């Protein structure tokens, strides 16, 4: 997967298997990457698990799980709300497109999580207050959203000549040559499928919706 971290770093990561994206006192999110299309090193996200931890009077533990071709509009116990304490529900799941999109709100930690299926892969976007993101102990030391991808697992984005169809296609969808544009080029080069650009476009839309300062949406790093 491509990762835009909480620290505004951007990496393309070759990790396989289940990896924690976020692991703090309130929230645990894990994503499973699986090799695809006959390649041993190109992976897609096939499963995302969100555990909203029990928190005092505000929320009881609740679990959300999405798999490829099954992004449910509810928690694993079938409910669409949770944390029903003191007459207030802190947790809520909502969907614009059941089966392919879910929005999870946790008001007691001011956090919004969006899970999507775009093409043949899942994606995740999270908006969370700094104090919540930083509420981890030294033992919670594996979090791709916080520390980024392990150095040994990072992949170089390939140079793509402007005259190629991939470049033209990504430019038409993503006019700003930022990290989302780079991700689009990468995915098109790897898959050879123009439809794979939808993932970067959706990730940019989520970033626009979640980042209040428009100047910070288009992250420019490395080749971008």
């Amino acid at each position, binding site marked *: *997967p*491509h*990762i*835009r*971290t*909480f620290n505004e770093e951007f990496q393309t990561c070759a990790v396989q298997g289940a990896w924690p*994206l*976020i692991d703090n*006192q309130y929230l645990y999110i894990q*994503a499973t990457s699986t090799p695809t299309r006959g390649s041993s090193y190109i992976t*897609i*996200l096939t499963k995302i698990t969100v555990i909203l931890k029990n*928190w*005092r*009077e*505000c*929320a009881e533990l609740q679990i959300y799980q999405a798999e490829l071709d099954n992004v449910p509009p509810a928690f694993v116990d079938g409910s669409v709300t949770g944390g029903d304490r*003191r007459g*207030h529900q*802190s947790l809520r799941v909502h969907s614009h497109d059941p089966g392919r999109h879910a929005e999870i709100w946790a*008001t*007691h*930690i*001011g956090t919004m999580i969006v899970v999507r299926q*775009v*093409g*043949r*892969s899942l*994606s*995740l*976007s*999270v*908006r*969370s*207050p*700094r*104090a919540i*993101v930083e*509420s*981890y*102990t*030294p*033992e919670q*030391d*594996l979090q*791709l*959203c916080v520390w980024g991808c392990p150095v040994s697992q990072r992949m170089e984005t390939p140079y793509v000549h402007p005259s190629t169809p991939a470049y033209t296609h990504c430019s038409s969808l993503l006019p700003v040559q930022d990290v989302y544009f780079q*991700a689009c080029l990468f*995915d098109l080069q790897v*898959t050879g*499928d123009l*439809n*794979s650009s939808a*993932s*970067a476009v*959706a990730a940019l839309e989520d*970033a626009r919706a*979640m*980042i*209040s300062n428009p100047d910070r949406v288009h992250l420019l790093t490395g080749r971008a």
Partner: protein
Amino acid sequence: CRILQCNSDFVAATLEIGVIGGGGKDGANAVYCSALRSYALCTQRTARACRGDLAYHSAVQGIEDLLIQHRCPQTGPTAQPRPLPKPPLSGNGCFYEKGFMQKEGRAPEYLHCGVFGD
């Protein structure tokens, strides 16, 4: 790998008790041993992530040497663990943003993470 956190926790603990090097008195030595055992526990917790880290292996060896040098028992009390990060909520508020604004007079700083690709 969070070995630097273990190192700084140990340095902070020894500075607090003023016994860098262990001191000579029995009481000071007992406190120093307690700090060393906490240091050892901290390294154990981060062992998986620090598998290939030279600073980690150096710390583990150093702790073993110091435990022997100061004749510290393998088991015994450990220093108080580092306090957990302050909970963001206070009073009866289950609305983080509302509670934060009441307390700080401004909206919280939000961070964004995106994981995607096809």
